[in-house]
Every structure is written in structure tokens, then in C-alpha cells.
């Protein structure tokens, strides 16, 4: 299973981001390898419009099964993610990437 977490910075200890489209980046956890990889969102989050769509497109490209954000998903991001079939967790709370993975990997 692949879990994509919107995060404020790279690494296991980073806090989950309450923004989705405008998160600093995304950590992808792959349960098969146990690896955590970082996908920076620096360029995309500066765009005026459609950042949620781009972030959701990244989730689709990375084939995430579960997508987590600390806040909510915007309507357009939600529409795209709905098509990918990924499970969505919003309002994950004030937790770290590691805690988010621990909490939701059994989903």
C-alpha cells in the first residue's frame, strides 16, 4: 500500500500539513519497502489556481492508495481524487508524518 501525506517538510518527524494543494510537499510511504520518499510542492503551490488539481494529479501519478491531509481537500482536488479511487483522510489533526502512517496504515 502507498500512503501520500501532505506535509510541512521532508521526513518522518515533519508535521502533517493542514493545506493540501499548497502543502510544502508530500511524503509517500510505501508499505512494501518501508521507504518514505519526498515530493516537493514548491513550484506548484505558487500557482494562482488549480494547485489542488496538480496535487491530486501527483497522487494519481504516484498511485497512492490513501491520501492524508491535516485540513480538508478542496472541491477540485476532491473531484480528481474521487476518480483515482484513493481513500481520503482529512482533518488528520496536529500529528507527524510518522504518527499519521502508524494511525492509518491499517486502513
Amino acid at each position, binding site marked *: 500500500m502507498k500512503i501520500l501525506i501532505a506535509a510541512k517538510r521532508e521526513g518522518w518527524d515533519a508535521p502533517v500539513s493542514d493545506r493540501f494543494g499548497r502543502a510544502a510537499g508530500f511524503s509517500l510511504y510505501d508499505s512494501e519497502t518501508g521507504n518514505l520518499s519526498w515530493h516537493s510542492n514548491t513550484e506548484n503551490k505558487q500557482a494562482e*489556481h488549480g*494547485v489542488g488539481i496538480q496535487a491530486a*494529479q501527483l497522487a*494519481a*501519478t504516484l498511485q497512492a492508495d490513501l491520501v492524508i491531509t491535516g485540513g480538508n481537500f478542496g472541491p477540485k482536488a476532491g473531484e*480528481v481524487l474521487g*476518480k483515482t479511487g484513493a481513500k481520503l483522510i482529512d482533518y488528520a489533526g496536529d500529528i507527524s508524518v510518522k504518527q499519521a502512517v502508524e494511525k492509518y496504515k491499517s486502513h
Partner: protein
Amino acid sequence: MQIAIASGKGGTGKTTLAVNLAVLLSEMFAGTDRKVLLADTDVEEPNSGLFIRGKLIDEEIKYRLVPEWKEDKCTLCKRCANICEYNALAFLGISVMIFPELCHSCYACSDLCPEDALPMVPHRMGITKRYHLNDNLQFMESRIDIGVEQATPLIEQTRKFIKENYDDTWFTILDAPPGTSCPVMEAVKDADLVVLITEPTPFGFHDLKLAIDTMEELKKKYAVVINKYGIGNDDVLNYCHDKRIPVIGKIPHLMEAARLYSKGKIMIDEIPEIRSEMEKIYKGICQLTEVKA
């Protein structure tokens, strides 16, 4: 002759000036062949029509073109999503999603798609209405549909509509959208003169400077009118004086003007000071555009 009434800050009196000036001119030249058109191109909130009421002549639904994804032709090359400057396309690996509200109708995805899988199809964006007030005064407005995010394509079509339908008009007064971004830049394209209306407050002054920068960038001829003159300070006046920007009118700040505005009434009929200021503005416009008054 086309005069656009614009402003940086909203709520400074664009509509008040546009409507009162249009009515004044139509009265001045009643019975002559000097026809006046008032055109409301502030499509997101056209409110000139609240002050003048005419007989509806006709209306036209306006469309813009947006790509439509043809699944049977698409080879999932992702070129479209990579090209789109406005994030209006999402590539999902097995499909492409289009967000018409983000599309700027630039045709890039459609033209550059190697498989012709993104033909452009019409999407409704708003409506243009034409009204007849009297033999010397015509009114038209465009109104964007609720939920449509891009105002500029409708303003562009409105601009062309004015060119095509009101060719014999002597004087067109255009109520432009506020701000300094694409909608106003599109609206003033055909104007011979842009009148920037402001209020003499720090906020009004700040946004006036932005509007002036925009007009300089567009190489447009422009002049300033100060509304609610009497409040605030002299910064606007001093700035225009220093920069040699013509100030062609100062509309006084009057409680009665606010009262008439709130009732949707024309001010020149009831406040002589405002009528004489409108006449002064008209003369200023004539001087700057070399129209014979």
C-alpha cells in the same frame, strides 16, 4: 469616441460618473444625430442598469470555447496537462479531467494534442442585453453567469459586440470593471480616453497610483476625476499636479448624493453642483480627445 470609466479601487463612483455623464450628454444633444451609448462591461457586477431603465431590445447568450476530452482518441501522452498554464487539466494515468472554470480558452491543449482528442466546444458564460432609453440614449450590459470564474472572455466579446452593433454612435461611455488586472485591461482596449475615478483618501490614492501604472503600461491616454471631494486629504490632487496628470472634475461629497444613489436615481437632475461638475468633466474630455463640444 469611446470613453472608459475605470478605477483602481472599487466603489469610487465609476457607475455614478458613467450613468450621469451618459444622461447629461443625451439631454444636451437631444434631437441631434449625436447618439450616446452607455455600456456596462463590469460583467461581474453590472449595476448601471439600476440607475437607468429602458426597454429591452434583445439579448444574446455568450459562449466561450473549452476543450472536451475524447476518450476514444486519447493515447494518454499527458502532453495537454503538461502544457496547460492554468492547471485546468488533470492527467490521471488512465483518463484526463477538464476543469472548464479554470480554462482560459487559449487552445494550447487542443491545438497541440497530436490525436485531436481535445476539440473545443462551446460553454455558456453569460448574457448580453441591449436596451433603448430614448432616441439619443442606448444602454447595453453584459452579465456573467453565476459560477463562471473568468470575466475576461465575456468582456472581450462585449467589446467586439459594441464595435459591431454601435458603429454609428457618436459617444460611447463604458463602465469598466474595477482593479488593475485582465478584466479592466480588456475593457479599455478600444477606449480613446480612460477616466480614472478615485476618492481623496489614502486607500483611493494608493489604488489610483496602481491604475495609473496600468494605463501607462497600456500606453492609454487618461485623466482623473476625484469623487467625494471634500473628504480625506489633498494627496491625490498634489500627486496629479506634480505628475502633470489632468484632473478634469471634482464631484463634491454630499449627503444628498448618497441618498439619491441609494434610491437608484440620477444625480444631475436633482443636484445642480453635480450637474455642473459633469459638464466640466465633459469639457475636459473634449479637450483631451479633441472632440468638438
